[in-house]
């Protein structure tokens, strides 16, 4: 008697336990690789883990819905994690207080640059209106971006992908870029990556320093609020 491997796989491939385990396993492997490479910015654990999992899903013919039934338990923690950002914010309150004016100015400049430059470049390259609307909120955190995309006439699901890609680009680019410019102010560096690349940028900033992570978290929250406000104003004038 040999175990019926096919029917065991049929059961396991549909089980949330399998995909939750796979998500953790892929992340542990990706983080091991990232640590091995000295946390090199190109060795981003989100990219490595997602590439591993995407390959497995495509190879086994598993659809994303089945995968997400297991992965949702990890995804769910994004909410509590956002609330938890209040803790480093509170702990570094004195540093944050001194930087209120620079933060306000940088937020306004960065938020407008993020939306206008992305839409401008894609428009010049001939992207249609639906894609442009999906692109505009890409620097905000996923739940806000998807809402804004819908109200602008974009495709929320496409926006979700663009948001993740923006996060990864910022997380990969920020450290070499800032080092090349000789910028050693970690509050400024963190704030920039929070405005440009929301939570994935914030995750990277926390790997570099707690101050950078704290400012990135504040920037992410504020940029979500400001972009929502700018879209409301835009719709009031355009509609």
């Amino acid at each position, binding site marked *: 008697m040999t175990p019926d491997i096919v029917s065991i796989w049929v059961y396991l491939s549909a089980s949330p336990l399998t995909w939750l385990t796979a998500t953790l396993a892929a992340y542990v492997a990706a983080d091991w690789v990232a640590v091995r490479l000295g946390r090199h910015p190109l060795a981003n654990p989100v990219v490595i883990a997602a590439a591993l999992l995407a390959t497995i899903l495509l190879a086994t013919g598993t659809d994303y819905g089945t995968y997400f039934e297991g992965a949702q338990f990890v995804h769910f923690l994004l909410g509590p994690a956002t609330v*938890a950002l209040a803790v480093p914010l509170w702990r570094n309150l004195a540093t944050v207080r001194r930087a209120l004016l620079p933060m306000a100015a940088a937020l306004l400049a960065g938020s407008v640059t993020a939306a206008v430059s992305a839409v401008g470049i894609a428009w010049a390259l001939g992207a249609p209106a639906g894609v442009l609307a999906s692109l505009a909120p890409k620097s905000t955190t996923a739940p806000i971006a998807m809402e804004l995309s819908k109200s602008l006439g974009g495709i929320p699901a496409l926006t979700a992908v663009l948001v993740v890609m923006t996060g990864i680009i910022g997380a990969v680019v920020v450290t070499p870029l800032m080092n090349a410019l000789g910028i050693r102010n970690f509050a400024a560096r963190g704030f920039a990556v929070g405005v440009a690349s929301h939570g994935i940028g914030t995750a990277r900033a926390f790997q570099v320093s707690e101050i950078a992570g704290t400012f990135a978290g504040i920037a992410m929250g504020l940029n979500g609020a400001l972009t929502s406000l700018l879209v409301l104003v835009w719709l009031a004038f355009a509609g």
Partner: protein
Amino acid sequence: MNDAGEPSAPSPAPLNLPRAILALLLCQLAGETSILAVRSIYPEIAFPGPVVGMALMFVLLVWRKGLDAGLDATSGAILRNLSLLFVPAAVGIVQYGPVLRQFGVTLALALIASTVLTLLVTVGVFLLVTRLQGGDAE
């Protein structure tokens, strides 16, 4: 102090993790609920509930003037591993093969250029205003 009548635990006191998780969830729930309430009146307003929850938690920390060790440990553990939480959303890319094939190059160029530009503008303005304020930009 406990039911078994054993001597109470020596310092450091055991971390109360369920209470920390409860605090995070309650703040998030309150945030989500307040956004739902606002949206039932102004449906065009888009704002994430967890960010309101973060503001609420911040107000609670300022008000209580202190941080519970369990909450410190729990939030620290979550934030040190924040990257993990984005993996399920990133895997979502597998669903958009056709759109990405059609507009992939345009989107990649727009995203890369826009992200680098946003980083430069944000960090530049932050440092400029810090210097104008008389602070040490380094």
